[in-house]
């Protein structure tokens, strides 16, 4: 049987490693660019969620609009510390130009070698 990468025996699993969780809230038209930024920094995976509504410096938006241009997406990526640092540094420039926010914090993961 094919083992998924990162498979480990139960014994090995005990000490759970720490990784960084990055979350970015970006506008639909800039999503591709943010994902490219993640990839360039070495992230091995990401998950995108649809925003429903929100408010920030540029005012309110909601998904129930005929206009898709101001919709926001939420991007989640678990990465190692190095990649996280690279993303956050690049994100400074990104979010100076485009609307949205980014933040990071530590998380405990299983199968740590895959991030």
């Amino acid at each position: 049987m094919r083992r998924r990468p990162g498979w480990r025996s139960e014994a090995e699993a005990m000490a759970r490693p720490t990784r960084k969780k990055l979350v970015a809230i970006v506008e639909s038209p800039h999503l591709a660019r943010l994902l490219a930024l993640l990839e360039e920094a070495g992230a091995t995976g990401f998950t995108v969620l649809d925003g429903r509504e929100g408010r920030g410096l540029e005012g309110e938006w909601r998904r129930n609009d005929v206009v898709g241009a101001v919709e926001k997406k939420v991007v989640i990526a678990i990465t190692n510390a190095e990649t996280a640092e690279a993303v956050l540094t690049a994100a400074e420039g990104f979010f100076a130009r485009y609307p949205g926010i980014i933040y990071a914090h530590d998380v405990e993961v299983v199968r740590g070698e895959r991030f």
Partner: protein
Amino acid sequence: MTDIFALAAANLTSPAVLFFALGVFAGVARSDLNVPEAVARGLALYLMLAIGFKGGVAVSQQGLTVELLLAALAGVVLSFAMPVIAFALLRAFTRLDRATAAASAAHYGSISVVTFVAGSEFLQMSGMVASGHMVAVLALMETPAILTGLMLAGRAADGPDARTRSELLREVLLNGSVVLLMGSFAIGWISGEPGMARLDPFVNGLFQGVLALFLLDMGLVAARRLSGARKLGFAGGVFGIVMPLIGAGLALATAALIAMSPADAAALMILAASASYIAVPAAMRIALPQADPSVYLTLSLAITFPFNLAVGIPLYAAAARLALGG
């Protein structure tokens, strides 16, 4: 003349306009009425597919004519040119910054599909059937204005990098609504009458009902956008009504120049007068993120769109008829 007033009144009591008004009422009164966005997008896809297909079938019976080519040329030229006027007006009479003024101007060079759809229904009701190829003109006018808008915004320090340029180019040439309109138009043209025999109840039977439901949602959206009107100021608000009149006037002059039929002229006027709310906002967010979206979305959705729907369309039709006979 009385005829014109009768038609204008009939327009105001047509289900389409009344459903739009209902949406505005519900939105302003903060009712919890809402149309799920997936449904709204589904309805928009339907309208584009149907109008494109019907236009193509109509053209399949006439063939590729000089009229088509001239109308397409006229539309593209208008789309490139109108933002220049809009930009000059906005800079002269409002205090909008350069980027926001340029982005707003681009919206007026482009078009609004639902305004065109509502206008076509009105023209048909008034016995002025525009040529099928006006749908192709609609699609062609969607995006040239984006380029003018960017030129007007000027070469900023952080002007479009290579990636932005390629994203933009795709937005201009392959925007979803351009592809669907042009594609459906081509399919209508290729499959012709036999194709129409199959799709008739879908693209014709449902058309006005779907339009009514979509306009209900447009009303809700317009009402929500009204809150942005304060930012525009008085001059901004006036611009949202004057600019469509200028666009329609330019279109009428162009139509006269190339000897369009009154119905086609009215359709071109409607296109020129309408302001984009899909393709251009998306492009502007990519290329001019520093421009304030609440300005251009309020202008387009909460001022110009309702004005055209309720007042503009019958006005342009009347003007085309008076000026070009028929």
